[in-house]
């Protein structure tokens, strides 16, 4: 599903963020990206949803080399990828409902379908009845639940997450992890950056270890 081959990334001012990265994630797999701060985890995820492009190497997602994707095709590629940020990235001028509806509205889905899908999703994360509230007023754990629900609302085959539990207490982190595992159980390929050793070892999933922009063997 995801395959990095000989990927190099240099940021401006000659910061070598990634050096010769090679790894693969199979379809339906759940894989962690781990390593200390500055190791290059976020950079790998940014390459995967095309916020950045590599200086060398190929990144294959579902048989397409996304590093060569034309910029006109990028939005459509992103619709097949769910992304969860450490800081949620909810839009506070919009209601919880509108935040969840956003990806669907962009595709021009009919409003009845949007309503049905969003309400079902709110039900699942236990926020039914609060759809018109502002996401500013809910707890951190609930914010991240909304963010994950938004990432999953289009049922994307791939779900990426950058330290999604980094800002949360242990109990919330547990609930969040459960959402990812549920999504994975339904067939979604998950790649999650995390430096929380406990979460990784408890999950039983494989981890790609990074250090100084290289994959550790």
């Amino acid at each position, binding site marked *: 599903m995801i395959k990095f081959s000989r990927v190099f990334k240099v940021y401006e001012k000659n910061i070598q963020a990634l050096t010769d990265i090679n790894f693969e994630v199979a379809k339906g797999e759940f894989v962690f990206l781990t390593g200390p701060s500055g190791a290059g985890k976020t950079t790998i995820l940014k390459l995967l*949803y095309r*916020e950045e492009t590599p200086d060398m190497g190929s990144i294959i997602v579902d048989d397409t080399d996304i590093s060569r994707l034309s910029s*006109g095709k990028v*939005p*459509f*590629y*992103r*619709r097949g990828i769910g*992304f969860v940020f450490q800081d949620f*990235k*909810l*839009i506070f*001028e*919009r209601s919880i409902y509108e935040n969840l509806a*956003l*990806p669907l*509205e*962009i*595709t021009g889905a009919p*409003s009845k379908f949007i309503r049905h899908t969003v309400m079902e999703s709110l039900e699942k994360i236990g926020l039914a009845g609060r759809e018109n509230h502002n996401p500013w007023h809910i707890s951190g754990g609930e914010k991240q639940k909304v963010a994950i629900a*938004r990432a999953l609302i289009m049922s994307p085959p791939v779900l990426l997450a950058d330290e999604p539990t980094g800002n949360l207490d242990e109990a919330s982190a547990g609930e969040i992890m459960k959402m990812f595992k549920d999504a994975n159980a339904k067939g979604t390929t998950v790649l999650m950056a995390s430096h929380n050793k406990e979460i990784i070892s408890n999950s039983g999933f494989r981890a790609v270890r990074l250090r100084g922009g290289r994959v550790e063997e």
Partner: protein
Amino acid sequence: MRLFREVVLNFKRSGFMSFVSIGTIILAVTMLGGFYIMQTVVNFAADQMQNRVEAVVFIKDGASAEEIKLLGDEITALSGVKEARYISKDDAYQDFAKDPEMQKILSSFEGNPLPDSISVKFNDYKAQEINSAVAAIKTKMAVEDVEYGAAEIEHLLNVINAVKYIAGAAGIIFVIAALLVVSNIIKLTIYNRRQDIYVLKMVGATGADIRLPFIFEGIAHGFLGGFLGWLILYAVVSFLAFQVKKETGIDLAAFYAFNPALLSPKFIFGMTGAGIVLGLTGSLMSQGRIFK
């Protein structure tokens, strides 16, 4: 639908700034509209005068028929003169006597007090040409006096013309100001919304999905500014016409087609359209590298 909600959302966020943007569009459009209105007034008045302008040459008592004939030929030969028509004192008397008021006045005289005259019509309404023709006629021997009554109207036209050009210049300045204000305010809105724009991109919004709301925001500002500008211009002109009528009794609406022009759909659409073009151009100007 989504577009509409996005525009409303931007409007809410920009708040006061949206009013500034609409306000400058109002100013620009009002000035342009004022220029156009004065242009129609000047053209209309000049047209009217062209048809009417006529100098009456009064002939000295006792001039012979030959002298009169010669004078007529001389006048016709002057540049800019269309025709010179001899009106005998008897013809003039009969003409005046048709009006009962005049009849009363005339009958208070003994005999016919009116002189022989020549009515002169001009090709074009060109003040300079007419003035020099009138001056030339005045020097002729058989001429008692020349009456030419358009000088005051001409003065008024000069004033309107001056105001017209001031409005035109102000219009151009405000158009530039409006473009700068609209584009910068939309830039500011885009800057304030950069977090949202990032999220929109990450969930797969295309460039058009992101840009269109801002472009429509510009169009909405332009539409509101243009229409309100028309409303304000209409109110101002109506008020002025009302005042003029009260003070002088002159009905500008009847004379110079003030109100009919203002109320024509062409004019309303024209001003609203000018506003929309301003808003659209301003918002297109704001779409720089922000979305790269």
